[in-house]
């Protein structure tokens, strides 16, 4: 085997695990995650000679992964439908319900150390359509660089804001209903 093939084989051994888990986290589907990670290694194989150790291998592969996830998204959701906020706002754009006014007793600062809360949060995230959840996750993984997410996923800036807004509205409602109001 040449040097390139040897390296790629080593990388497959070393990084498949974390790449697959990251891909699953983004896509919520094992088969999709495997397909995407396979594409990551194929890309790495093809562009091996342009890599030149500029960054760490893992960082480089993760960057390719984010790109491939965005590409996956772009192909799957080519025509994003209108993100509707009618559930929360009336025709004038005012809040429909007063439940937004209820206090959250979130003084417990380490909510994420609480297993019960983590479970509720995970369930609430699962309820978001992937069409919104993938861009929301990418947005955080890309350190909130909206331009980058838009460019990679093909979502317009206006739609990205709406997706974030809509996604968070729903998450807020779900957390409120399943956690904060019960406390």
């Amino acid at each position: 085997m040449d040097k390139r093939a040897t390296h790629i084989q080593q990388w497959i051994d070393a990084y498949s695990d974390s790449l697959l888990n990251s891909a699953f986290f983004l896509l919520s589907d094992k088969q999709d995650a495997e397909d995407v990670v396979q594409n990551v290694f194929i890309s790495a194989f093809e562009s091996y000679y342009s890599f030149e150790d500029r960054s760490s291998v893992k960082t480089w592969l993760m960057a390719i992964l984010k790109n491939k996830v965005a590409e996956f998204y772009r192909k799957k959701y080519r025509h994003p439908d209108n993100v509707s906020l009618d559930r929360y706002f009336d025709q004038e754009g005012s809040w429909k319900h007063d439940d937004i006014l209820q206090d959250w007793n979130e003084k417990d600062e380490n909510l994420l150390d609480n297993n019960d809360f983590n479970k509720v949060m995970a369930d609430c995230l699962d309820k978001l359509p992937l069409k919104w959840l993938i861009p929301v996750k990418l947005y955080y993984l890309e350190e909130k660089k909206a331009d980058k997410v838009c460019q990679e996923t093909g979502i317009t800036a206006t739609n990205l804001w709406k997706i974030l807004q809509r996604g968070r509205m729903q998450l807020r409602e779900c957390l409120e209903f399943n956690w904060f109001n019960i406390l």
Partner: protein
Amino acid sequence: MVKRLIHILFMPCRQATLLIEKRNANRITSFQKIRLKAHLMICKWCRAYNHKINVMEDLMRKIFTQDAPDKFNNIDLQTFKDKLKEKLK
């Protein structure tokens, strides 16, 4: 009545909550920032939302940037690696 007044004077809540997203991403113009501040000053609904969004923003940032949990068992993983290695020889 109050809601209606807010709508007429200081943009609808639907728009204010969108500006909150832009503000959190540092993508808000100075003019929008002033309008949002004014809106939040008089609108208790959006003020409550703004507070909850800040709590959630922190939670989401932490959850989405921590290491992803293990979802693939060793057998799946080995099968995946073997198949891929065969392909990229």
